[in-house]
């Protein structure tokens, strides 16, 4: 049985959870995105970022959670150098339900994964280790991240295997991105601890896992370790283990850490936040359409194939492009162009940031394909250039000679030349009608995809049969 504790930064917010410093700490030199509040100077007080409450509540609603009547914040007390106050302001349900959400669920492959609790809390600073060996190692602290709004999502132990974990995290990541609350592709924006146990065994928590890729490995390792213990009749102890990034194994933490008593107390500097039905209604209405509803709409309204609709709806970048580019009539073709031609060009965060493509480019491209000015294959070439340059479709077509060759005489000349170079292929095409496709390909290659495919086929057939 596998349960997850996922930490997700609300990266799209302007400011930190309790002060006006930037939530986007990544662009700063170490220890320059700070103020008396986020480094906990004597006398400073937290002031709650209401936007963070709103965004976190949207996550709770999107995960079908119950939301409380009032929100409370608590202090989790522990000494650690990344925590400038030596306590973290977080939430728990010490006096009834007072954290952002509880009892939600996510459906994966027809199975319900229950969400136990969602809480809003502050991210600590970052520790940076320098030095060649353990003996010479020094630890540096960068507090730029301290106070960044963080949402912790705790699941019930409903996941069965690493594959399900991967699917769950992908769905969650898409959901957060679709809500516009976070960019999960940013380094450190989404992190997870995992609880693993086997039938009849106690729960083992694994922390310090750097990436989702390693998370799967850690689960594999932990399941195997626990099963082999069980086989030898050794009971699995309840403990916290750390993922060793270099050796790719889990290591038992010192038992002291597990016993740590956080001495939770109410954070008196932040009064109870009353969630009245009016604001809840307002927030609910301002939530973007969910991925499943988008998918449903793409299929039923535009007749987009299920698989294409799936890809399109689950990726906010693609679905935003689609929403802005499509009309009733071209929707299917826009969807196709995004999921076949565009996808390879903008499949990473960097490529997306650098891409100069605008929604209008897509609708213009479909238009000139439909009115016969360029071939589909030329359009694909044009798309590459547009992503790089951002030039308009008409400019690209006129400058680079992508206009479709529909002149029979011109095309016949090219085809004659190719046939003379490919006697074997001609012979094969005469014997097997399927083999003609090789020659079509050659023509397309020669014309860089500008040849009218139907016309090419007709001329080829005529010439071969004579």
């Amino acid at each position, binding site marked *: 049985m596998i349960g997850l504790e996922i930490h997700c930064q609300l990266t799209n917010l302007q400011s930190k959870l309790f002060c006006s410093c930037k939530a986007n700490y990544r662009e700063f030199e170490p220890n320059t995105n700070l103020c*008396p509040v986020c*480094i*906990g*100077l*004597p*006398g*400073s*007080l*937290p*002031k*709650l970022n209401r936007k963070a409450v709103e965004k976190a509540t949207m996550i709770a609603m999107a995960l079908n959670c119950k939301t409380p009547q009032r929100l409370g914040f608590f*202090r989790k*007390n522990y*000494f*650690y*150098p990344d925590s*400038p*106050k*030596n*306590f973290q302001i977080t939430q728990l349900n010490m006096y009834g339900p007072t954290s952002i959400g509880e009892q939600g669920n996510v459906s994966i492959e027809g199975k319900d994964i229950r969400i136990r609790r969602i809480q809003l809390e502050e991210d600590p600073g970052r520790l940076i280790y320098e030095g060649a060996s353990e003996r010479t190692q020094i*630890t540096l*602290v960068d507090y730029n991240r301290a106070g960044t709004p963080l949402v912790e999502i705790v699941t019930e132990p409903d996941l069965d295997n690493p594959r399900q974990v991967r699917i769950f995290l992908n769905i969650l990541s898409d959901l957060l991105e679709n809500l516009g609350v976070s960019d999960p592709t940013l380094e450190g924006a989404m992190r997870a601890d995992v609880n693993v146990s086997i039938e009849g065994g106690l729960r083992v928590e694994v922390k310090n896992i750097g990436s989702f890729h390693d998370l799967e490995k850690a689960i594999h390792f932990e399941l195997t370790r626990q099963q082999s213990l069980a086989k030898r009749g050794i009971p699995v102890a309840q403990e916290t283990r750390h993922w060793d990034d270099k050796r790719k194994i889990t290591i038992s933490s010192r038992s002291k850490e597990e016993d740590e*008593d956080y*001495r*939770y*107390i*109410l954070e*008196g*500097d*932040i*009064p109870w936040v009353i969630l009245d039905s009016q604001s809840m209604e307002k927030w609910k209405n301002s939530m973007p359409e969910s991925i499943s509803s988008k998918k449903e709409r793409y299929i039923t309204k535009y007749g987009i194939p299920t698989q294409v609709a799936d890809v399109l709806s689950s990726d906010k970048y693609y679905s935003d492009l689609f929403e802005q580019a499509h009309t009733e009539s071209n929707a299917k073709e826009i969807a196709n162009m995004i999921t076949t031609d565009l996808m390879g060009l903008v499949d990473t965060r960097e490529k997306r940031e650098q891409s100069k493509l605008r929604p209008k480019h897509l609708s213009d491209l479909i238009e000139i394909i439909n009115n016969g000015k360029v071939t589909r294959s030329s359009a694909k070439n044009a798309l590459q250039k547009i992503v790089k340059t951002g030039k308009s479709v008409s400019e690209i077509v006129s400058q680079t000679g992508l206009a479709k060759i529909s002149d029979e005489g011109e095309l016949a000349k090219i085809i004659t030349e190719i046939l003379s170079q490919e006697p074997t292929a001609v012979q094969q095409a005469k014997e097997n009608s399927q083999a003609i496709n090789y020659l079509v390909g050659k023509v397309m290659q020669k014309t860089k995809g500008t040849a009218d495919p139907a016309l090419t086929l007709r001329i080829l057939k005529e010439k071969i049969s004579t």
Partner: protein
Amino acid sequence: MSLAISALEYISNVKNGNTTAEEFIAKTLDQISKHESKLHAFISINEKALDQARAIDKKIKLKEKIGALYGMPISIKDNISIKDGKTTCASKMLQDYVSPYDATVVSKLKSQDAILIGKVNLDEFAMGVATEFSAFGPSKNPWNTDYVPGGSSGGSAVSVSALECIASLGSDTGGSVRNPASFCSLVGLKPTYGLVSRYGLVSYANSIEQIGPITRKVEDAALLLNYISGRDVNDNTTVDSKNQDYLAEIGSGIQGKKIGVIKEMSKGAGLDENVESAFWRAVNSFEKLGAKIEEVSLDMVEFTVATYYVLTTAEAGSNLSRYDNLRYGYPMDLEGYEFKSYISKARKNFGPEVTRRMILGGFVPSAGFAGKYLLKALKVKNKLKRQVLEAFKKFDFLISPTVPILPFKFGEKIDDPLAMYMADINTVTANLTGVPAISVPFEIHNGLPIGIQIHADSLQEKQLLQAAYALQETTNLPGAPL
């Protein structure tokens, strides 16, 4: 120009040209240097005070826009942050800490052209009733230097009493403004929780403490409250003061008002008989002023000191955990320590009372004990609050002696924490319930001051100050024998 004038008198004298800010500040600084070696009210002095006074005089001369306090010298308890100056909390832990920002109350006073004459002494991190726990040595009571000035805002009270400033800001977590005011024959106001921003006040028990003025006159406290109160975006617990003018109509009197004498605070074994008899004379004065007096019982008061020490140590344990000497603090050699041993060593610089409360603060909210201590204390607090709210349905004011005992001698209670904590019995109720309370000087017994405490319902400071003013006007007390 005498230094023994009220804030209102100071303002009118500067306005009329009877004195200048420079002249008054120069005299004040003389007074400080004359008495400091004996009284030790100050931890640091504002070196730029005279320049600031000259700048204010220039503004007056040129008829430029000027703040309402006209260069009035005000001292600030050294747990309230002033930008670019030390804020030590009278602790070795923060002996070198310089605040990079102003507390909200400080920027408010600065914007009214007050001159913040210096930072004044306190019990370390405001934990104590005598300033005996200051890491930099105690302050002495100007009425008799063998006696404690009260605490924890002892330096505030001493500086006001010894004419080293016109007024002071202290902080009151369990009586820390009212207790030294009572012991030094001054006015001390603990406002409603949330009326004054705590931003920049170093937290001790953040859910119950407030900044409040210590002054020689009730009207001065009202004046200062006008300028320090109100909602602050930097303190989410603040409330709207609705721009009340606490000074206007301060002489309205209390004819026909209903006053409850809190039974549990005005009788019993811990009450000094001289304090008790003075208190009943005060009750008599209130009656003569036209108020209707009745006894009221708040039976939760019996448990308030225990409750107070559980709640405040739990919060202090958390609030003071940031002092690990990693980011600021005092010089310490890192060699030979790893993280945990460094922190243990660094935190040894807390004094004995803070250490005692840190230990309690680690214990009362801990797993297995929270139910027996912290949660029980929260229950008492809620029940007490209900009782007080109920009482205010019937009464306009609730009164008691401010402190059940007279000022005591240095060393008399320092080794008996329980006896020391019982000095808070009459003051902690206002903190636990959030209501405002004021201590008004009433009598001098054998050269030692006695103060009377008045509570009002939440946000009823205006009424409260009227009652305090009415009582003040029945008295005619001398200043401290300097």
